[in-house]
């Protein structure tokens, strides 16, 4: 190439000198210098490629680009199927990647839309907490700590606390459940949020318990529910039957500090009683708040933590002396309590969450989409190379006729760029739809998600980046190929210099097959995991189980009447023959949060459980309705009723795992237990029955449970469980009818099948399973196309060989066998490459799986079989075609 370039330069110089010498001569004959030059040029003739003396004749770069683009367009339309496949691959790759990147970016990387988010931190109590356990999830802090710290510290410029919850909001004539956030008066100020309408909370709105019936609406809720009405300020609404007035609307784009639970309304922390049922705000033995703070300028989280260590120690010691501290605490527990530490974590992203909850699924999702993109790019490169090979002759002829290599390479790049541009544009257009679909899955969990399906600058930049990479990859193959084309080789009869190309393409296809297997395995594993969770998840059969909630306390009932009303409803349900068994509980199964406490056990020895055990208050018939069997003793019955107001604790039923763990060598019936936290108190409760356990709170945990009779305590709300063979459509109205008959003012909420409720918990698992399936499908499709393309090509390049064999008498089958053999080789190599990768990646997804190992034989086997079937299928058509090659056709000169 060096030699060629030099000779180009030489030629140019020679021509120029020729013209000048001629011009000199003409000048000597009497012409003016410019006339002489013009005449000499004219005499020479038109040779633009040798001598671009006259730049006005040379086409401008954008003219060239336009020609190239038009030419590229024609060529693309000329091979519609290939172009369409490449386009589809790019759309899928770019679209999905952009969508998932946008979501992952918002969820994992982006800061809260508040002032100086890097200054924000969140407090975490690390260590043992002595008390009634926590209400809620995530870094919980008792309100008392928040108050005391506020007065004493010097490292934060501001502090605020919040607590999420769910309430019934009545506005106008419609009542619905919405997410809410209780916040201290400093909250909006600390975050630097300014109202869109009206005003936001200040410290004055948060002084006296229960004395601030005011509400702030979120921007989205204001738009959707109140139609953005600017006269909404001052409007009266009812929150859990309490009248309150709207004082302001938060700005657009602000969704609180936890994007997975975007609140519809904010309430002052002093209104805690309206939302939560657990007593006084300053109760030191309960923690339910998340505390955020803004660091002083120049202070790092580490310094703040160190600075507060001493204070926290003082707090702990003082706490022990205070009234309300349990009289006798185990020394080891006390030690652990005093060894607790108050951690200061970065809070720029808002609510910290456990890795497993969100990061892991998001990372897995991102990794899968990256794999899919890789597959798409491999496909594009593969098909582009196929096109390049097919056009070898065309290229060779043009090179021989004098087209410069540079031009041909540019043409290929423009073609690839055109595809990438269109693919990218369509992909980016589709990305919001893909985001929305993914979000609709995520939102079915515990509330509205504050993630947006819209793409912002970063997502678009990523899409652009991906498109550029796609262009390079898909253009590189053909361009390289074009540059290396040797004209004579290509002009030879069939076959020619395509050996190297085939090798590269084979390698690409093997890569594709590997990736397809990885994605197939993923889909299989997630699918199996989901099925396990659904069937074994709760620990009892979730089929044909109906559930709904009635909350008389929200309709103005006093607690005693509420209990009576719930009893009446249950009696009606049990009497009605439409239903099978029915039961009611104060706390719903697997609905987030719930009741828990440590337990004091007077067995052979007096002990208290280390951890808080899940508890519930249930009616007779509850276990029957759930299908949980009583293995020892009895169910609750008419004896376990307290007709008066208030509580009484007499009997309890425990789960099998409770007995296994705490009473392994004793007969459990008759053993006395009580609530922990106060070891001086004698145990008042008698165990009267043991049931098969089930999973109360989360689908993956399995802890010992304790049940109390619902009619022996207060019950402001009840969740009913009804098992019936009838369809949901007939049961639902029957249920509403019964409740209405008891009292028309009572409303039925959360009416659904239990399966539907579990599904809410399986949001991520379902998403992974569904997306996994979709990815596997695309991957297999792309892989099939890749294999088909390579096998077709390979078969074609062996046409002469086939023809010869046929002429020499080989049976038709032989050709087919040859092709299928190659298909098998490609498939096997791809699978072999993938297996160690899967084994290595296994650790990444292990934590997400339930009831299935990463190296599950059934899943591996199925995936391998599917892939082999696909590979064979892809090879079938070329094989069939090749087996029908006649000798004559094979030797045709083309």
């Amino acid at each position, binding site marked *: 190439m060096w030699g060629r370039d030099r000779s180009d330069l030489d030629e140019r110089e020679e021509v120029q*000198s020729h013209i000048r*010498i*001629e011009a000199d001569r003409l000048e000597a004959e009497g012409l003016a210098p410019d006339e002489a030059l013009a005449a000499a040029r004219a005499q020479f*003739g038109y040779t633009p490629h040798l001598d671009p003396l006259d730049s006005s004749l040379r086409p401008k770069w954008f003219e060239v680009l336009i020609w190239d683009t038009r030419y590229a367009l024609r060529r693309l339309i000329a091979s519609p199927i290939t172009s369409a496949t490449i386009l589809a691959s790019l759309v899928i790759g770019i679209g999905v990647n952009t969508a998932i990147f946008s979501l992952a970016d918002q969820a994992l990387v982006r800061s809260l839309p508040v002032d100086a988010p890097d200054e924000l931190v969140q407090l975490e109590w690390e260590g043992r907490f002595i008390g009634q356990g926590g209400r809620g999830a995530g870094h919980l802090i008792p309100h008392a700590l928040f108050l005391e710290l506020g007065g004493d510290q010097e490292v934060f410029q501001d502090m605020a606390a919040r607590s999420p919850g769910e309430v019934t909001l009545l506005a106008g004539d419609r009542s619905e459940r919405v997410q809410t956030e209780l916040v201290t008066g400093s909250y909006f100020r600390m975050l630097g949020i300014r109202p869109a309408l009206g005003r936001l909370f200040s410290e004055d709105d948060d002084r006296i318990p229960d004395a601030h019936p005011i509400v702030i609406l979120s921007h989205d809720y204001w738009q959707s529910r109140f139609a953005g009405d600017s006269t909404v300020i001052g409007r009266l609404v009812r929150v859990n039957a309490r009248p309150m007035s709207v004082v302001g609307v938060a700005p657009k784009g602000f969704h609180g500090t936890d994007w997975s639970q975007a609140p519809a309304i904010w309430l002052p922390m002093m209104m805690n009683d309206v939302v939560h049922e657990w007593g006084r705000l300053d109760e030191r033995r309960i923690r339910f708040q998340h505390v955020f703070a803004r660091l002083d300028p120049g202070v790092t989280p580490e310094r703040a933590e160190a600075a507060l260590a001493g204070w926290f120690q003082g707090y702990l010691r003082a706490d022990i002396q205070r009234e309300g501290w349990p009289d006798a605490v185990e020394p080891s527990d006390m030690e652990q309590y005093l060894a607790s530490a108050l951690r200061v974590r970065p809070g720029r992203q808002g609510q910290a969450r456990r890795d497993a909850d969100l990061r892991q699924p998001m990372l897995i999702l991102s990794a899968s989409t990256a794999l899919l993109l890789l597959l798409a790019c491999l496909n594009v490169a593969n098909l582009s190379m196929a096109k390049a090979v097919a056009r070898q002759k065309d290229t060779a002829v043009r090179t021989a006729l004098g087209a410069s290599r540079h031009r041909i390479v540019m043409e290929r790049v423009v073609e690839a760029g055109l595809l990438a541009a269109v693919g990218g544009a369509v992909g980016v257009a589709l990305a919001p739809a893909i985001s929305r679909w993914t979000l609709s899955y995520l939102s079915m969990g515990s509330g509205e998600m504050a993630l947006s399906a819209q793409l912002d600058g970063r997502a678009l930049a990523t899409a652009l980046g991906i498109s550029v990479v796609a262009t390079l990859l898909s253009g590189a193959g053909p361009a390289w190929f074009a540059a290396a084309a040797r004209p004579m080789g290509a002009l030879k009869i069939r076959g020619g210099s395509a050996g190297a190309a085939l090798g590269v393409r084979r390698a690409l296809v093997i890569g594709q097959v590997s990736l397809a297997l990885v994605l197939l395995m993923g889909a299989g594993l997630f699918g199996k995991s989901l099925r396990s969770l659904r069937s074994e998840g709760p620990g009892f059969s979730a089929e044909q189980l109906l559930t709904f909630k009635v909350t008389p306390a929200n309709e103005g009932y006093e607690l005693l009447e509420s209990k009576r009303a719930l009893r009446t409803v249950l009696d009606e349900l049990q009497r009605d023959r439409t239903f099978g068994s029915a039961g009611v509980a104060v706390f719903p199964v697997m609905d987030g949060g719930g009741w828990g406490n440590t337990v004091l056990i007077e067995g052979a020895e007096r002990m208290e459980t280390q951890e808080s055990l899940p508890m519930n208050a249930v009616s007779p018939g509850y276990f029957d309705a759930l299908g949980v069997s009583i293995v020892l003793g009895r169910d609750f019955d008419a004896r376990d009723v307290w007709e008066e107001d208030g509580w009484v604790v007499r009997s309890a039923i425990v789960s099998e795992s409770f007995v296994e763990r705490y009473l392994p060598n004793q007969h459990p019936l008759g053993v006395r237990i009580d609530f922990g936290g106060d070891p001086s108190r004698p145990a008042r409760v008698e165990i009267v029955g043991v049931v098969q356990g089930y999973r109360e709170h989360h689908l993956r945990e399995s802890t010992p449970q304790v049940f109390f009779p619902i009619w022996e305590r207060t019950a402001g709300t009840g969740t009913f469980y009804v098992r019936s063979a009838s369809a949901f459509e007939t049961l639902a109205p029957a249920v509403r009818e019964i409740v209405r008959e008891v009292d028309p003012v009572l409303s039925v909420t959360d009416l659904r099948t239990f399966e539907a409720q579990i599904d809410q918990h399986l949001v991520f698992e379902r998403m992974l399973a569904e997306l996994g399936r979709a990815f596997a499908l695309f991957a297999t499709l792309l892989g099939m196309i890749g294999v088909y393309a390579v096998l077709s090509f390979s078969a074609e390049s062996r046409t002469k060989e086939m023809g010869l064999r046929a002429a020499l008498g080989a049976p038709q089958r032989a050709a087919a066998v040859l092709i299928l053999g190659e298909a098998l080789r490609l498939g096997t190599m791809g699978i072999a490459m993938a297996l160690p990768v899967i084994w290595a990646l296994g650790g990444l997804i292990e934590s997400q799986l339930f009831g299935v190992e990463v190296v599950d034989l059934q899943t591996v086997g199925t995936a391998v079989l599917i892939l082999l079937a696909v590979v064979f299928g892809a090879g079938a058509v070329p094989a069939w075609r090749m087996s029908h090659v006649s000798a004559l056709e094979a030797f045709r000169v083309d």
Partner: protein
Amino acid sequence: MTTQEKNPNRVELLQGTLDVLILRTLQHGRQHGQGIARAIQETSGDSLLVDHGSLYPALKRLGKKKWIRAEWGVSANNRRARFYELTPQGHEQLEVEKSGWFRLVAAMGRVLGADPSEAQ
């Protein structure tokens, strides 16, 4: 495609003929491209050679066949130019072509110029 009007006197050249003209021009010494073009034009009475540029593909071809060789030098006007000269094979080839042409010309002349009535 030319940039001059077609002079009806100018005879269109076949590829091979240009080769001969070049060889002939170089028979008596080296010359550069422009010199060769002018020489052909003048000695043919301005009736041969349409575009100077069409010389160069021919020169390249002759160079590939090793009938001529090229070398950079300086022209009479102090311009840098490439000079061509015949190789020994080139001299030989010229003799071959010359005799071939003369035979052809003689034959054509006989056919075209003879009076049919003179045919015996």
